C-alpha cells in the first residue's frame, strides 16, 4: 500500500514529503503515514474537514487505520501512548469531529479501544479521560450577566460524563 492510493480527491494541495501525506493549508500540515500496512492519521483540530474526508475515504476502501497525536509529527518529541489517547478525547470534545463522525456513522471510541488493546495500554484510558473531563466541565461565574459560563456546550459536557461507561461497553464487545 502506498500513500498515492489514499488521497481522497484530486486537489492540488495534497503532496507527499518524507513518507508522509501533507495538505497545504497556509503551510504543509502532516495528515497521515503508513507503517506495516496500517494507516495512522494525525487527528489535528486545525484540519478537521480534511481528516474527516480522509477517514470517509479510508472506510470506503476498507483499510485498517488508527489515529495518532499531531505532536508526534515532530521527530524531536518521543512518542508516548498517553498523548495518543489524549488526542482521541480532545478530538471527541471538538464540535466538528463530534458531529461529523456521527453523521458519517463512524465510532471513534471503538477505534481507540482497538488501538489500546493492540498496544496493551488500557490502564491509561481512565486518567486521560478524567483530565479531559475536568477541563471540559470547567466554568466561571459572570457577575455582570449573573450566570455560569462554560467553554463547551451542554451536549458535549453531558456526553463526557457518561463516556467511560461506553468505553467499557466497547471493551466487552
Amino acid at each position: 500500500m502506498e500513500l498515492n492510493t489514499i488521497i481522497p480527491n484530486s486537489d492540488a494541495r495534497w503532496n507527499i514529503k518524507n513518507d508522509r501525506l501533507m495538505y497545504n493549508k497556509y503551510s504543509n500540515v502532516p495528515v497521515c503515514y503508513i507503517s506495516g500496512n496500517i494507516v495512522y492519521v494525525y487527528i489535528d483540530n486545525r484540519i478537521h474537514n480534511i481528516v474527516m474526508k480522509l477517514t470517509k475515504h479510508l472506510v470506503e476502501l476498507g483499510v485498517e487505520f488508527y489515529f495518532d497525536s499531531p505532536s508526534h509529527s515532530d521527530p524531536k518529541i518521543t512518542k508516548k501512548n498517553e498523548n495518543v489517547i489524549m488526542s482521541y478525547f480532545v478530538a471527541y470534545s471538538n464540535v466538528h469531529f463530534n458531529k461529523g463522525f456521527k453523521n458519517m456513522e463512524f465510532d471513534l471510541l471503538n477505534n481507540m479501544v482497538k488501538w489500546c488493546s493492540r498496544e496493551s495500554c488500557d490502564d491509561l484510558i481512565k486518567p486521560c479521560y478524567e483530565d479531559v473531563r475536568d477541563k471540559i466541565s470547567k466554568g466561571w461565574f459572570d457577575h455582570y450577566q449573573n450566570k455560569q459560563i462554560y467553554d463547551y456546550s451542554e451536549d458535549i459536557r453531558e456526553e463526557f460524563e457518561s463516556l467511560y461507561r461506553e468505553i467499557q461497553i466497547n471493551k466487552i464487545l
Partner: protein
Amino acid sequence: MRTRGWRRHMEEIKFKKRIKKLTYQYRWGYGFFDDVNWKKIKKPNWSDFIGNKYYYFLKTSPTRKADTKYKCKYSPNKSNGYYRDKKVRPNTTGNREGDKILFKRMLEREYGIKHYYTKL
C-alpha cells in the same frame, strides 16, 4: 485569468503577513501558548495559530469597504444602500450567502435533501 483561486491566494498572503507580526510578540514572552490541540508551546510558529481565535479574527471579512450594514441603516447617508444587497440579477438576493441559503431551502422542500451544519 484572475479566478477565485487567485483571489483566495492573495488573501492567504495578507493573512500570513498579519499573523507573522502577532507571533513575533509571543516569541519574546514568558508564558506558554495553548494550541488548538491542547498543546503548550513555548515559542510558537505562525502555523500553530491556525484554528485559534486569531485565525478567525485576522481573516478578511466579506465587507471590503468601511460601510457596514449598520452604517447604511443608521447613518445620515441612508439613500446609499448596502452594496451587496443590490439586486443586480433577478430572482436572487444580490449576494452569494443569501443565494446559498435559498438554494438549501429549495433542496429541503422540493427534494427532501437536508444539509447538516458541521461548522458553527
